[in-house]
């Protein structure tokens, strides 16, 4: 977070930032369901915070054992833990043979401390990770309060039972939180939106109908399509992007050529050393140089720099290869791999520099063509600013939504790569109480913090209005007008299935112009359209519901996006916009139709005044394609000259029934 908030336009030094106008989220309570919190971290100091909001009804449970006790303050106003569902499944006592854990809200894992400090941590200056990424860490809403619900336990990397998650959501609704942040997911295939095995969709439905925005991660199963999780339309689902910061490290070869890789290496420069690539004899000379299968003897690599190529699971490969090279006396490692954004220190500051296959191949050709190849490895530097483009992260899960493809997911994208934030001192990667982590776990609390700022500015906005404001104002281009890319194989221009509306633009969302609002009735419309039965829907919403005999269309859910997964000839969809700006306003449409698709609006102009605050319009979408196509993308923007209210549009033509994801 030493850079991510500046990247998003929420610099504390900018007077026009909503950080100032929202009083840094003062008065808003963010509930975080995660691995707990390390309350003594400086990021949770409560200096300058006023009294705890009077509506707060939560509690601070200190825990059973003296070493795990937690004390709250005016920043962490609530802390609870829910383990019974987990223990009933796994047996007691908690098996923490691999990792320490506390039966209290105290965070042994570090993940919950990272996410909660990202959402609402206080300003702490002069923080870095081993000298890299230095600056001031803070949360998105530094004056918001935190309510900690520990539901994930430090077993096998962090596990959480749906019974515990549901209990935490039930209590959080009672306690009076305004925003909920859940960096938790499950696995594909998904359970339905009304299936409690999901644990999140059902509980969050009840939270959202009470005005609580629920922010969840999209998951880390990208870049494959249809991997996005937490897809219910009432959830705000967050993808992950890089920011305008990199950590280049130079590799200088004996032929005087220099290549730049990326690393988290802050040790001394490794002067010119012999450079080796473990080449096998026989039919497959490359087999010995595969990172994940690296097996090198001290006689081959002692005192040398090793090059290897990672073909699969790069992160595991790098750790393993670094350990092997180090054990054999090697002094450095160059890893050639597919671009994956995420960087991790190779332990004890061992120099392992990551390059792409192109650079790796150049280095290999140099080794193969030189009698005594040499390389010099520099330590990493922190490069920040406009010349570094943000991209959708390689790992970030992608749409379309596998439950309801007409509901665009993810909704929005936020920084989630190499994010420096507070952690537990027990985190083995920690440096002085801080660590760099990557994942949609990290992008989720960024959005939760921004939602807290919006809640402080607009306390009456519904969760759907907040989502709409975020989606329709998001960035699809960088400051210089350059489009945003999505990392994958190969890298490509990002589309709504990569980033939803785009990269979150907090200052834009504070003044969106128009919003696509929704309430319980709209969610019932969705549930009817999904063929859930009347009695289940009635119980869910707490009153008798009879779905209309003519099934509603998913395409008419009042979302700030338009996604048509199966267009044959022509279809007409309806949207209703609510004026969230000055009462007198005239909006005109700008259409960027997907390739081969025509979009006709009625009306083409929206006129708002003191009596007309909501206007419905229709869009008739027609395809000229005569074959089944993939998705084509476009946008629909309503503009009054000041605000641009942009909906992402995704359309797939299907003249024949789809038999697979074509």
């Amino acid at each position, binding site marked *: 977070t030493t850079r991510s908030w500046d990247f998003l336009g929420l610099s504390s030094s900018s007077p026009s930032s909503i950080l100032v106008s929202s009083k840094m989220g003062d008065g808003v309570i963010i509930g975080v369901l995660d691995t707990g919190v390390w309350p003594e971290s400086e990021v949770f100091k409560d200096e300058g915070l006023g009294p705890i909001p009077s509506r707060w009804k939560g509690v601070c449970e200190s825990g059973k054992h003296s070493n795990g006790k937690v004390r709250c303050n005016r920043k962490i106003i609530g802390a609870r833990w829910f383990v019974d569902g987990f223990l009933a499944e796994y047996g007691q006592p908690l098996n923490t043979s691999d990792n320490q854990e506390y039966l209290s809200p105290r965070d042994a894992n570090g993940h919950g401390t990272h996410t909660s400090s990202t959402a609402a941590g206080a300003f702490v200056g002069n923080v870095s990770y081993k000298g890299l990424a230095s600056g001031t860490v803070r949360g998105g809403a530094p004056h918001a309060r935190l309510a900690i619900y520990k539901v994930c336990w430090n077993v096998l990397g962090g596990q*959480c039972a749906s019974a515990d998650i549901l*209990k935490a959501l039930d209590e959080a609704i009672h306690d009076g939180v305004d925003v909920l942040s859940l960096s938790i*997911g499950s696995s594909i295939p998904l359970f339905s939106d009304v299936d409690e095995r999901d644990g999140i969709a059902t*509980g969050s439905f009840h939270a959202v109908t009470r005005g609580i925005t629920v922010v969840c991660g999209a998951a880390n199963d990208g870049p494959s399509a249809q991997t996005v999780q937490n897809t219910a339309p009432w959830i705000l689902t967050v993808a992950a992007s890089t920011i305008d910061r990199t950590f280049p490290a130079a590799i200088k070869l004996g032929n005087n050529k220099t290549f730049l890789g990326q690393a988290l290496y802050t040790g001394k420069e490794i002067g010119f050393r012999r450079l080796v690539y473990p080449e096998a004899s026989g039919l497959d000379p490359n087999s010995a140089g595969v990172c994940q299968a690296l097996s090198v003897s001290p006689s081959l690599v002692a005192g040398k720099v090793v090059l290897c190529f990672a073909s699969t699971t790069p992160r595991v490969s790098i750790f393993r290869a670094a350990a092997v090279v180090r054990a054999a006396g090697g002094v450095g490692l160059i890893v050639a791999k597919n671009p994956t954004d995420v960087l991790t220190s190779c332990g004890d500051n061992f120099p392992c520099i990551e390059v792409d296959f192109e650079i790796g191949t150049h280095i290999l050709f140099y080794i193969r063509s030189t009698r005594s190849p040499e390389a010099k490895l520099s330590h990493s530097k922190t490069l920040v600013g406009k010349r570094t483009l943000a991209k959708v992260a390689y790992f970030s899960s992608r749409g379309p939504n596998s439950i309801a493809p007409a509901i665009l997911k993810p909704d929005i994208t936020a920084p989630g790569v190499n994010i420096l934030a507070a952690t537990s001192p027990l985190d083995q990667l920690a440096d002085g109480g801080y660590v760099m982590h990557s994942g949609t776990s990290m992008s989720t609390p960024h959005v939760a913090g921004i939602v807290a700022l919006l809640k402080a500015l607009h306390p009456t906005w519904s969760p759907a209005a907040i989502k709409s404001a975020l989606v329709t104002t998001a960035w699809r281009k960088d400051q210089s007008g350059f489009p945003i890319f999505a990392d994958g194989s190969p890298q490509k221009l990002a589309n709504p299935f990569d980033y939803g509306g785009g990269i979150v633009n907090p200052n834009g969302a504070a003044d969106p112009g128009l919003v696509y609002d929704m309430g319980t009735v709209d969610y019932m419309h969705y549930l009817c359209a999904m063929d859930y039965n009347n009695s289940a829907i009635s119980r869910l*919403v707490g009153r008798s519901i009879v779905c209309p005999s003519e099934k509603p269309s998913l395409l008419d859910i009042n979302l700030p996006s338009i996604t048509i997964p199966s267009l044959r000839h022509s279809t007409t969809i309806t949207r209703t916009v609510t004026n969230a700006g000055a009462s007198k306003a005239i909006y005109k449409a700008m259409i960027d139709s997907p390739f081969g698709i025509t979009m006709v609006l009625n009306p083409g102009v929206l006129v708002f005044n003191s009596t007309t605050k909501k206007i419905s319009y229709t869009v008739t979408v027609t395809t000229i394609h005569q074959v089944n196509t993939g998705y084509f993308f476009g946008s629909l923007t309503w503009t009054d000259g000041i605000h641009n209210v942009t909906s992402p549009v995704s359309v797939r033509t299907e003249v024949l029934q789809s038999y697979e994801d074509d």
Partner: protein
Amino acid sequence: EGKSKVHIVYLGENQHNDPALAVDYHHEMLATVVESKEIASDMMIYSYKHGFSGFAAKLTESQAQRLAELPGVIRVIPNRIHRLQ
């Protein structure tokens, strides 16, 4: 049949203004499929009583099936594990 596993019995929107009444209702409902209220109390893990209604309890498959057939029960579903992202 013999092995109990954590199940979530989901009843939808909370129909009780008083959380204590919701808890009593959950115990009574569970007691209808076990021998007594005392056993029901031992099996109960959580009552969901504020934002929505339901409970989590350790149930055998046949107990889960019988609960699922009671009026007012939307679903009875096994607990499952989520992971950090």
